[in-house]
Every structure is written in structure tokens, then in C-alpha cells.
């Protein structure tokens, strides 16, 4: 347990001891804030055009249903934030194992009393903690603004849960990709490709039958994440993201065996 704590402390120190972590946190929060503000401004403009005196005012039916705070502002921003995560998380996880491999310190890790599973879980926990922090600082502004619109804290908590679960899935994919290579570039690119692939598999529906298309739909992250963004928390969706983490971490664990065999 002491070794595990020491490893986590070391990972946290190396993460927050470098300016890149702060840069990533700041950039994601800034980009989200700018996108959100832009959507909000556009929404206000559209709403005022529809509700102008010539169109009958706010009380009239002239404003289409889809011009509302949720559909026009918050939901698209959360969708963008989900995609931003795909772009950012591999950059955070790319060095977790790959850097150790490149430096040769991964073998040192295995000489401690830690099992490969403990090493994987410790690194995942630290990466996940960082991603949750990143989501929290990015979520703060849209959530504060939307809460002023009276849309309810429960819904916002559902969205945040979806974000953190999505982050957990992506962190584990990034970790698995980092575990199979000593190149951080390869780790990042492969994590992007896998995450992009699983984000939305509906593109493949054109090539397959309805049944397989349904299966591919069930494998996609985007509809699951959208469900949280829509305010619906389903146990199946929670388990789906936990399942991605489980399989990815098992693959990362497998990389230790592969390394012992292939040298």
C-alpha cells in the first residue's frame, strides 16, 4: 500500500510539477468558455429576431421550439466538450507508460512490490483525477450561466457525470495505447484513432445490415454521452463507460506480459 501511495504521489507530482498540466487545464477551460459565450450570444440574437415586435413578441408562437437554451446553447457546447476531451485526453495520457518505457524506468517499477495491476490502476487513478479536474474547471462557466436560466442543478449534475464517465473511458483508452509503445506520438495518435472510432460508429451503418448497425450503435460512445447531456442517467450507460475502462485497463495490464515476452 505504501508503494502504491508513493507511486501515485510521484505521478501527481510529475503531472502538476510541469507547466503543461496547467496549460491543458487553462486551454480547455478557455476554449469551452469562448464556444459557450459565442453560442449564447448567437442564441440571444436569434431569439430577439424571432421575438421582435413584428414577429409577435415572446408570448407568441413565432419562436420555433428548437430555439431554446438547452438545444441551442448548452447541448451543442457539451457535445463539443465531449469531442474536445477526445482531442485532449490522449495528450495527457500519452506519456504515462510510453515515457517510462523510453527512459527504461518501467522495469524499475516492476522491481517494486507493486503488481502490474496496481501500477496500471495507480496511473489510471491519477490521470482520471486530472481529467475530472479539467472537466470541473471547463464546466464551471457553462453551468453557472445555465443555472441562472433556471434549468436545474440535477440536470447539470447528470451532464457532469456523463463528462467524467466519458473522461474515464478516454483516459483508460489513452493509458492502454501508451502501454504498448515507447513513442508518445504513437501513443497519442493511436488513442485518438481508437477514441474517434468508438465515438460514433453510425458511419459504418451504410455498409452493414440493420442488426449489425444496431450493434455498432450500441458500441458508440456518442449516443451514450448524449443521453447524459440530455439529462437521463441510465445504469446501462454508466456500466458501458466503466466497461470501456475495464477492458482498456486489462489491455494495459496485458502489455506488461507482452513486454516480458518480446523484450
Amino acid at each position: 500500500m505504501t508503494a502504491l501511495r508513493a507511486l501515485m504521489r510521484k505521478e501527481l507530482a510529475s503531472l502538476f510539477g510541469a507547466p503543461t498540466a496547467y496549460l491543458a487545464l487553462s486551454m480547455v477551460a478557455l476554449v469551452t468558455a469562448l464556444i459557450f459565450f459565442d453560442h449564447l450570444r448567437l442564441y440571444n440574437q436569434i431569439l430577439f429576431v424571432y421575438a421582435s415586435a413584428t414577429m409577435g413578441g415572446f408570448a407568441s408562437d413565432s419562436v420555433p421550439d428548437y430555439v431554446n437554451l438547452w438545444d441551442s446553447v448548452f447541448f451543442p457546447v457539451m457535445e463539443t466538450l465531449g469531442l474536445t476531451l477526445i482531442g485532449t485526453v490522449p495528450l495527457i495520457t500519452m506519456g504515462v507508460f510510453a515515457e517510462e518505457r523510453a527512459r527504461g524506468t518501467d522495469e524499475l517499477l516492476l522491481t517494486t512490490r507493486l503488481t502490474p495491476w496496481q501500477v496500471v490502476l495507480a496511473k489510471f487513478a491519477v490521470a482520471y483525477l486530472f481529467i475530472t479536474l479539467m472537466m470541473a474547471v471547463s464546466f464551471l462557466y457553462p453551468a453557472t450561466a445555465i443555472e441562472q436560466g433556471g434549468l436545474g442543478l440535477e440536470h447539470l449534475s447528470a451532464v457532469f457525470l456523463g463528462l467524467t464517465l466519458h473522461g474515464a473511458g478516454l483516459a483508460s483508452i489513452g493509458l492502454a495505447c501508451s502501454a504498448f509503445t515507447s513513442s508518445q506520438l504513437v501513443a497519442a495518435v493511436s488513442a485518438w484513432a481508437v477514441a474517434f472510432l468508438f465515438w460514433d460508429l453510425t458511419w459504418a451503418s451504410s455498409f452493414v445490415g440493420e442488426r449489425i448497425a444496431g450493434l455498432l450503435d450500441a458500441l458508440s460512445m456518442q449516443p451514450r454521452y448524449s443521453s447524459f447531456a440530455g439529462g437521463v442517467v441510465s445504469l446501462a450507460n454508466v456500466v458501458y463507460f466503466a466497461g470501456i475502462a475495464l477492458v482498456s485497463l486489462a489491455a494495459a495490464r496485458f502489455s506488461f506480459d507482452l513486454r516480458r515476452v518480446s523484450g
Partner: protein
Amino acid sequence: MRELALVGLIALGFGLGSYYATRELTAFAVLNLAVGALALAMAVVLALRRLRFAAGSHSRRLLLRGLLGVAGALALAVALERAAAWSGLRGDLTFERSFELAPATLKALGELPGELTATLYYDRFDPRARHTRLLLASLAESGRVQVRERLLEVAPEEQDRFGIAGSNTVVLELGSRFETVERPLEATIYEALYRLRSRSNGVIGVLRGEGEGDVSSDAELGFSGLASALATEGYQVRSLVTASLAEIPADLDAVLLLGPRRALLPESVAALERYLERGGRLLALLEPGAQSGIEALLDRWGILAPEGVIVDPASGAAGDGALGIDPIAYNYESHPLSRGLNPDRMTFFAGARPLLPHNAGPEDSVRRVVLASPRSWVTQDLSVLSKPRGALLRGGAPQDYHAIAAAGRYPRAGGEARIVVIGDSDFASNRYLRALYNLDLMMNAVHWAVERESEITLRPKLRTPKQFPLPIQSTLRTFHGVGLLVPELLLLGGALVWLRRRQA
């Protein structure tokens, strides 16, 4: 091998990126996907060939154990996900609980004679489709609905067949019958389900000729909404002109009197009484300040409707008139007609006259159903109905739970007569029918009167999305105070860390 894998991943990434951006499989996307898949396959083959040299039995055992671990994790994840999906556990955390199906919708689904197919027709970038998908997912969880999605651009024949006017339209199909729902909300889907069920609940005769409410008028104080709701729930509406009414037709299941402004002719009242004696059913919506001519009849049947207006200070300035003149009722007596209504499910009345039930016959049963608050009182001054906003003086009028609606059952030789009286007719007008739980009270009153108690339910509400602007000043304050300040502080922290590292 690594080069091939890298090329494959980059090509795959660009292929998918192109698809996500345009939502179309262009030649660029297909080419990238094909190249990516091919390169990755070759990289995997090369990797496997490399592993062949790890030929020792110990190595093979190690690899096999690792692979089994991954396969086991995958199997466990799939099994758990399937079990979770089977359990159907989900929570609707939206502000208005938009995806929790009302009991009425679940009941309507349960009573369908076969499996229903719900198809969403949408355009690629229609934002409304997201909400509709979640709603259809809720329907699918009932187990009796198969949900499909079709892009409008690939379904021109279906557009013609189902009369689809635009994106975000749901078509409900039951065997060879279908209903097209252009504004898919739970309330509209519920109504379509009811129409698909096509059960006939009876014929309602609506009296006309003495200034009663007009069921064909779509004006604010018209009753076309009520007529539409009656048709949706399986009732045929037939007009009865009182001037030529010698006898109420025997094939009617109930007679509806919608707030007459003038007294009914004595012959019409007599015909109504004969109809009731034969075991007929009457729904009378009376207006304060207007003599309907049936007050004496109602008194004989145990419901006194005195002149006067209920003033309920607990309702505040709910309407446009004087304080308390438009009662919001939240007290209901236990009665089949008010099933499901409780203090959280209120009904609104735009001016109401009091009702005093009393038993007329030994076997008759007359009950109060909807009550104003215990702070309510009755004024005989009918001019309060036209007074502008402002408080009314109670004087010495006693405060009590004054009945706004009452219902009676009367066993007679020809069958059981039923009467429902409501001291306001405007509550069922187009303006107020869908306010609070007015529609439920009105339709449940009809169902109870015609002895279709199994149809009594609470219907899903028509909810409109929040469409108000966020004031730009407060938006700007939040943008500066949170949106920009937080990233700035983080960047400052990063800069300090970087400087310290350089100094070290």
C-alpha cells in the same frame, strides 16, 4: 510495422473526422477509412509474425493468460452492460422530468393490440432530434415499442405515404394503421396512441341555442380543444339544438351543457329531467352570474347552485380579475373522478360559482369533488367578476371549503343516472383547458359520467421549452468572472511552475 500502424491510425482518424464534420461518407472519407483499415491489418499481421518467435512454452502461457484476462474483462463488461440494460434502471434528471412517461401513456401502450413501431424521420443537423430520441428511448423501455430512425433524404416514398411535412416527425405504426406526429412530445404521442387504439367510448350530446360554449370555435374562450380531446379519447360529439329538443335521444351516452348565458327553455329542462329519470348522464358546466335554467332541476337532484361567486384569497391574483376571483383548487374529495389529483396537481377556474350538494333521495349519493381553500368565501355581488385587480372585502361572509365541483349517482328504474356539475365553464375553454390539471378533471368527469372509470387517468402535459434570453449584462459578468478568470488563474499557475523549474 510501426510506420504502417501510424499511417493506418492517421488515415483512420482523418476518415472519421471527415465523416463527423459532414455526416456524409464522401470519397475522401471512404478512401481514408479503407487505407487506414488496410494499413492497420498489415501492421497486426506483422506484429503477430514477430510474436511467433516468442516460442517458449512459458512465454506462450504468459501471453495466453494475458489475452484471456483481456477477453475475460471484455466478456464481463458486455455481460454487465446487458444486465444493466435489461434492468432498465434510469433516472430522468431533467428539470421538468421530460422523459418520465406518465401513467396514462404507459396504460395506452399496454392496451395496444400489437407491437408498435415508432420511426423518427429527421434531417442530419436537426437539434430537436436529440430530445425526440430520448423520448422514444423511454417508449422503447416499455417493451411494446420498436424504435427506428430514418433520414428524410433517404425516405422520399415514406414521406409521401405518411404525409411527413418536415424533420423531427415520428410515425407510429400499428399493423396497417399509422399516426403521424409532427411535434413529438409525450402529450402528442399519447394522443396518437389513443387514436391508434381507436376505441369508441360513446356519444356526447352538446346542447346549443342558449349562448352555450361553442365546441367548433377555436377562439380563446371557444371549446374546440375540448371537442378535440373528446374525439381523441374516443367520443363522438353531437350537437343538440335546445329550441327543437322535445326529447333527449336515447343513444346518447351523456349530455354536456357548456355554460349557457341564457336560461334553457322549460321544455328543454323537462326533456333533460325525463332523460335523467331514464338513467341518463349530465355534465353541467355553469357560469357565475348566468342563470342556466337548470338550477331548480339540479336542486331536485341534490345539487344546489346558488347565485354568487367564490372568492379564494389563497389563490392570489391568479387571473386578470380581482384578488381571489379565479380560484386555483388543490383540495379534492376522495372520488373516482378526482383520482390522481392532489394538492400538487391543481386546477384553475376563471370565476366559479359555489355548489352545495345535499342528498335528494335515500339511495342517491351526491358528493363534493373539487373544493376551494378553507379561506374562501362567497360574495353575492356579481359585479366582482368585472372588477379590475385589487383586494375584495369579505365582510361577515363565512370562510369554508366551498365546492366548485360536485357529482351524484342516482339509481333509477331505467338505470343509474349520473350528474357532474362544475361551477365554471371557462376552465375547459381553449384558453385554460391545458392549464394545470384542467384537462384531466374535465375528461375524467366525462369518463366517470359515462361509467368508463377505467379510462380515468392523468395525461402527459404539453411542455414547451424554455425560450427566454439570458440578460447580456449578467452573462457578461459570468463570462468575465468565471469563464475568463479561471483559465487566466490556471495559466498564471502554470507560468509560475515553469519559472520555478527554470530557476531550479
